[in-house]
């Protein structure tokens, strides 16, 4: 359906363009005056008045059609007394019958009726969709064609419209942020209506079980996220222990010691490391590093969990090595050459210059790079989902199994997502915490780096 409507729109805008062009030529000939802009601008004007209303109709149909039809079908559904219905399952069943995915025989009569209703509504919606697109395009073209007079300044108007489009494009980023903030806050508020915020932030018991049946008393969920935060912190510390020295030393070597040729080879290789999808690192952690950590733990007499914080953290460290090394490389390179030369000039050797002059000078930038890397590590999902555990565990031992914020978000949202229980909503509360912390780290890091840059400019 939507493919053919795109064809329809394409045909519409093409013909409106042709129409606009010939119309303005005709009009100016009739009046015997030259038009104020080139004919193409008038054509574009008609085209825009044709295209944008049509697009609005198109998207509102695409977004709302299914929901409206479903609401009508459900509200007209002939409920049988006494039977219990799950709305989602019921809808899925009606849709399947309507689309001939599952055979109608064996289904109850009310579902078959509803499916017929559903199909007929779909048909009505399709027909009215096509007619309304055609009508709206005609109306748009009609409105625009009234303005097609030689004295009308089409070019100015077009350029104004283009400005509006560009402003819309740049505000998408703002809409995205607003969308993120509002969806997180809205769902989190629903979560905190059921679970107190103090319990969430300060309690150490995380048992996100909710009663499956009504009246079930055995499982009363408790949502204290401290063990999750602690696990995230532990994995992050392990990752930074791997990435900070390796990344920084690599950056120092590349910036200060390596020849041009080595830089040319190593930098793209590190970029490969940075471009590898995180799920690949997860696989690596799962099949190589975790068994190794377990064997290593056994050899020194520690019983390591197969989903230890150490394995996940080490691989995550590898993932952020290129991140740290490229940022630190930039920072070290932007230390002014005069500092280097002054230090070498009074007889310091290279290592001393680096340790006593360059690193202190570059320190703010390096700290900024580390903060960005930390925010990366905290928000990283796939490595920990595959290689770390799902059970919360308040521990400082990296050989033990821990869980992280991102893992808990995934765990809460895999499977059936009913948005009325705190278990699902907890994902949004955890997401809010994650968002706030990473945003905070980023703002600080960017500030530090910016100030550092300004100092040497």
């Amino acid at each position, binding site marked *: 359906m939507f493919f053919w409507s795109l064809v329809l729109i394409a045909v519409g805008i093409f013909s409106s363009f042709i129409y606009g062009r010939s119309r303005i030529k005709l009009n100016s000939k009739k009046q015997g005056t030259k038009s104020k802009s080139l004919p193409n601008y008038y054509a574009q004007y008609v085209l825009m008045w044709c295209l944008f209303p049509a697009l609005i109709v198109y998207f509102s149909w695409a977004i709302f059609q299914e929901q409206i039809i479903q609401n009508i079908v459900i509200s007209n559904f002939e409920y049988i007394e006494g039977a219990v219905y799950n709305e989602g399952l019921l809808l899925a069943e009606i849709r399947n019958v309507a689309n001939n995915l599952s055979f109608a025989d064996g289904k109850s009569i009310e579902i078959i009726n509803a499916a017929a209703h559903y199909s007929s509504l779909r048909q009505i919606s399709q027909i009215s969709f096509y007619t309304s697109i055609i009508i709206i395009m005609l109306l748009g073209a009609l409105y625009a064609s009234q303005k097609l007079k030689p004295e009308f300044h089409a070019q100015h108007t077009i350029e104004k419209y283009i400005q509006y489009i560009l402003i819309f494009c*740049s505000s998408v980023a703002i809409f995205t942020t607003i*969308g993120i903030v509002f969806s997180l806050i809205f769902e989190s508020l629903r979560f905190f209506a059921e679970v107190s915020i103090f319990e969430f932030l300060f309690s150490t018991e995380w048992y996100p079980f909710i009663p499956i049946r009504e009246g079930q008393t055995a499982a009363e969920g408790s949502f204290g996220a401290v063990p999750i935060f602690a696990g995230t912190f532990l994995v992050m510390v392990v990752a930074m222990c791997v990435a900070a020295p390796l990344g920084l030393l690599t950056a120092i070597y590349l910036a*200060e010691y390596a020849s041009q040729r080595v830089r040319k080879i190593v930098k793209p290789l590190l970029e490969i490391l940075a471009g590898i999808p995180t799920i690949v690192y997860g696989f690596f952690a799962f099949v190589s590093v975790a068994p190794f950590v377990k064997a290593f733990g056994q050899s020194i007499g520690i019983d390591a969990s197969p989903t230890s914080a150490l394995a996940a953290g080490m691989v995550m460290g*590898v993932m952020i090595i290129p991140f740290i090394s490229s940022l630190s490389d930039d920072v070290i390179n932007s230390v002014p050459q005069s500092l280097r030369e002054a230090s070498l000039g009074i007889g310091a050797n290279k290592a001393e210059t680096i340790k006593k002059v360059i690193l202190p000078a570059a320190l703010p930038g390096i700290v900024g790079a580390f903060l960005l890397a930390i925010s990366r590590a905290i*928000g990283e999902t*796939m490595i920990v989902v595959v290689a770390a555990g799902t059970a919360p565990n308040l521990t400082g031992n990296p050989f033990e199994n821990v869980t992280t914020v991102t893992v808990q978000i995934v765990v809460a949202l895999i499977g059936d997502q009913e948005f009325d229980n705190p278990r699902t909503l907890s994902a949004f509360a955890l997401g809010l915490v994650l968002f706030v912390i*990473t945003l905070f780290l980023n703002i600080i890091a960017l500030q530090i780096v910016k100030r550092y840059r300004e100092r040497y400019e």
Partner: protein
Amino acid sequence: MNNSIAKEKIVSLRKKRSLEDMRFKYYGFTAMCLSLAVLVFLLYTIFSKGYTAFQKTIVLLEVDYNQEVLKLTPDSSDEDMEKGKFFRVKKQAIENFFPDLSKSDIKLVKKLFSINVDKEIKDYFLDNPEVINTKQQIWVTAHSDVDQLLKGNSRRDVPEDRRKLNDIQLSYVDQLVEENRVKQVFNNFFFTKADSRHPEIAGVAGSFMGSLFTLFTVFILSFPIAIGASVYLEEFAPKNRITELIEVNISNLAAVPSIVFGLLGLGVLLNVFGLPRSTPLVGGSVLALMTLPTIIIACRASLKAVPPSIKEGALAVGATKTQAVFHHVVPLALPGTLTGTIIGLAQALGETAPLIMIGMIAFIPNIPTGLTEPSAALPVQIYLWVESAERGFQEKSAAAIMVILIFLFMMNAIAVFLRNRFERKW
């Protein structure tokens, strides 16, 4: 006397200092080598675990296409042939697979074959209807357990109760190997089939198509929006609070964890707008929002690289600002923006977490054909296979990683090619 001691001290100090210098240099060198060694080890792990997935094990099976068993006649119509009783033919073939099988043995033999064998027997017959009432030797797919055993991925020296195949089945497999009734061939299923519960017939075709559709959506949404946004910010935007806000916003969005974008997709696109779950349309929209900052930053850099003299020249001969920008600056910056977009797409291709959030993790056993159909995506498929308990899926996940890495490599190669071919030095 004093002098020579002082000299000695200086010499030893200098030695110490230059040693320190050397040591520091080697620390850096070792760190760099370690990082690269991890990369090599990672690629080696993937290759060594994954290359076996490109082969499958097939077994020679003698099938008797008896017309009575099939309930067909040589002149049945095509439609009737579809309905032939092929499962009975298969049952018979398995019963006669080895001479003198008891009932319990037949059950064990049956487990050596893939679930797909019924279909293979049927397809062979539909392709060659003349084989009715003859006995045919057909190569059919073996069960994943046999496959893994012959590839050496599962071990036979563990106790029987911890093995998938018991001792009798092992002896059957050995007998097959001895009689040359089993061999390994190229695994076409891996490239032509979608996901399956059975490792031997699971493939990446479905998730690959899903990823393509997702990337298409990302491109359609993010490329025009990114160009619009960067042209506005670079060329038109007045220097004021709002512009600054937008810029800060973009740089902060670039660092928001991808999983948060997944929550955005779930909370807004699925729950508020009611877009269809698990579809490339929603996945692509979320990833487009995620990659937008990356692409915008690249676009702005390439717009900045166009010398102002070009715009000024256009303005001088009477073009309006819009004309100067869209007729002269943007076309010159286009190769750079395309390169940036491809790099953004490569990032989107490997992204897993947001797709899980919007339900692209569902088990989809067929190949998607459109943007609004439920589908899987390559990285999510890898995740599903990594998490799967079945041993046969591990090599599949490594092989799927190879596919995605090759894909990524190609995209980056195209980006580099574009940059080298079209980038102008002013």
